[in-house]
């Protein structure tokens, strides 16, 4: 088995990749599946293999149960919210929005969940970074929380800017707090989540010397802001993107998005070439 794929490791062509990159197709035991607030659920499963291999930014392709009302046919992609090699536990933080996530929400402790992964290209941390900024909203934070932990493990400082509709919708603060991240909460309810305000906040963090790299997920508006600032200030960045998926393994080409690479628009598969991409190359979605 080769190491998990991260953005940095993925530069080699396909021809040189050996088969077997630590992708498992397992039936994981559900340990718990509970509401976090009125929109989000936390699903905890036991999956020792995947827990060992998954890197922040990678995702799993989940077979969502058929319920009385829904029969989701395709799998659904979900970010690794936690993957703990010690306990063998993998967690997903998800928003109930349609047939698939309603099916997920029907799981109870003791059920089994077919999960394929870890899949895709995770976040990469450069050795010379000392402080990173993560900016996320909604389930985007499910993707960024384990990144913060990965950074902390390498002694990289983290500033987490958490955007939400209101205080009730704020997610994952304890996860960021636990690794000693500086936490900035911006809300729609008091206007602090506006692009203007977040821009001032990011500029301040940069001025303080705490922005060696930018990371974002979950909001197009905030991604564009970070991209513009990153470009202006010369800060490298990565963005985790979403797109509807069928296979999750780079086979079907349904999950493409456009990227700007050297003046040209190129199409890339979110599941295989991403979901983590260079921030500078992303385009509005």
């Amino acid at each position, binding site marked *: 088995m080769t190491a998990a794929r991260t953005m940095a490791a993925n530069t080699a*062509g*396909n*021809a040189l*990749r050996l*088969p*077997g*990159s*630590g*992708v498992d*197709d397992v039936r994981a035991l559900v340990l718990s599946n509970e509401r976090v607030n009125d929109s989000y659920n936390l699903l905890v499963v036991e999956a020792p293999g995947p827990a060992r291999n998954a890197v922040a930014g990678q995702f799993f392709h989940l*077979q969502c149960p058929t319920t009385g009302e829904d*029969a*989701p*046919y*395709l*799998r659904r992609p979900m970010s690794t919210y936690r993957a703990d090699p010690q306990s063998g536990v993998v967690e997903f933080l998800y928003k109930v929005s349609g*047939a698939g996530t309603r099916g997920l929400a029907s799981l109870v402790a003791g059920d089994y969940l*077919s999960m*394929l992964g870890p899949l895709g290209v995770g976040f990469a941390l450069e050795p010379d970074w000392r402080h990173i900024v993560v900016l996320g909203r909604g389930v985007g934070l499910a993707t960024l929380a384990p990144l913060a932990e990965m950074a902390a493990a390498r002694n990289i400082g983290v500033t987490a800017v958490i955007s939400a509709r209101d205080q009730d919708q704020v997610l994952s603060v304890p996860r960021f707090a636990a690794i000693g991240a500086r936490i900035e909460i911006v809300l729609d309810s008091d206007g602090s989540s506006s692009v203007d305000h977040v821009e001032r906040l990011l500029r301040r963090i940069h001025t303080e010397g705490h922005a060696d790299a930018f990371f974002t997920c979950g909001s197009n508006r905030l991604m564009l802001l970070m991209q513009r600032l990153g470009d202006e200030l010369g800060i490298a960045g990565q963005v985790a993107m979403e*797109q*509807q998926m*069928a*296979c*999750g*393994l*780079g*086979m*079907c*080409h*349904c999950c*493409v*998005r456009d990227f700007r690479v050297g003046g040209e628009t190129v*199409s890339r598969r979110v599941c*295989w070439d991403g979901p983590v991409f260079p921030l500078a190359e992303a385009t509005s979605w």
Partner: protein
Amino acid sequence: MVDMGVKIGGLALANPVMPASGTFAEGLADVVDFNRLGAMVTKTITAELRSGNRVPRVAEISNGLLNSIGIPSKGLDYFLSETLPFYRQFASPLVVSISAPTADAFAVLAGRLQLPGIAAIEANISCPNIEEDGHAFAMSAASTSQVMRKLRAASSLPLWAKLTPNTGDVVAVARAAEDAGADALVVANTILAMSIDTETRRPTLGNIMGGLSGPAVKPIIVRMTYQCARAVAIPVIGCGGIADANDAVEFMLAGAAAVQVGTATFVEPHAMTQVIDGLAAYCARKGVGRVADLTGAVSDAGLRLGDTEVLP
């Protein structure tokens, strides 16, 4: 031990199970042992670069999938330098699916693929023929005949013709492909379909219409497999909605010499190897010594009345 080998024209396969074009690529090697497959079939390639259709490119429908991927292609050179070496790592024969906008362009592309590591060509003649107003070659016997003849002249590799179920006369098209020199038929590609989101009033695909695949199409394609297998002498490879070994048996009984598994792999990455194992188990249970003996072994009599009598 069940003999799982089948012959598709001159080509011997270790078992009758292979992927359907466009539902298989390098990434699956992270999960499935490609050396177990009867054959490997590439996504359709074109000589030129192509970008594919607008997103959303797939939509889930009850028991199936709509797709309008199109044929995004990095072109022949990329295929030869990157994709082909990857597949050469594996022992299973490689079938390269090709498409082109004209019969001549088809022939040129096939000619350039007469290479070590390529065991057969699958001509995806379900794609639009720009010389016929965008109608797919396989919509009519005449254009099928024309393109297959040019392909036959351009290549000495085994040549498979992949038919479209959207034609009104699949049997005539099958016969035309056979007469023009095809070594096998793949029955079939996706069925043109559409769905609309009633909340937004928008088509669920960016391309408005797309191809239907998965369990929903199975009875239609089983019927075409049955019709084609009785009409031609060359092997028919069944493809449409196969998700488990029972589906594969059904296609083989209907006349298929081998099967392709497509959409099912998206739901269950191990679908192909499960079909292989399940086919062997079915044969063992039923006392069938060679899986090839299933081909066309349907009893045409139909079920009789008495079969549904309730008797303890």
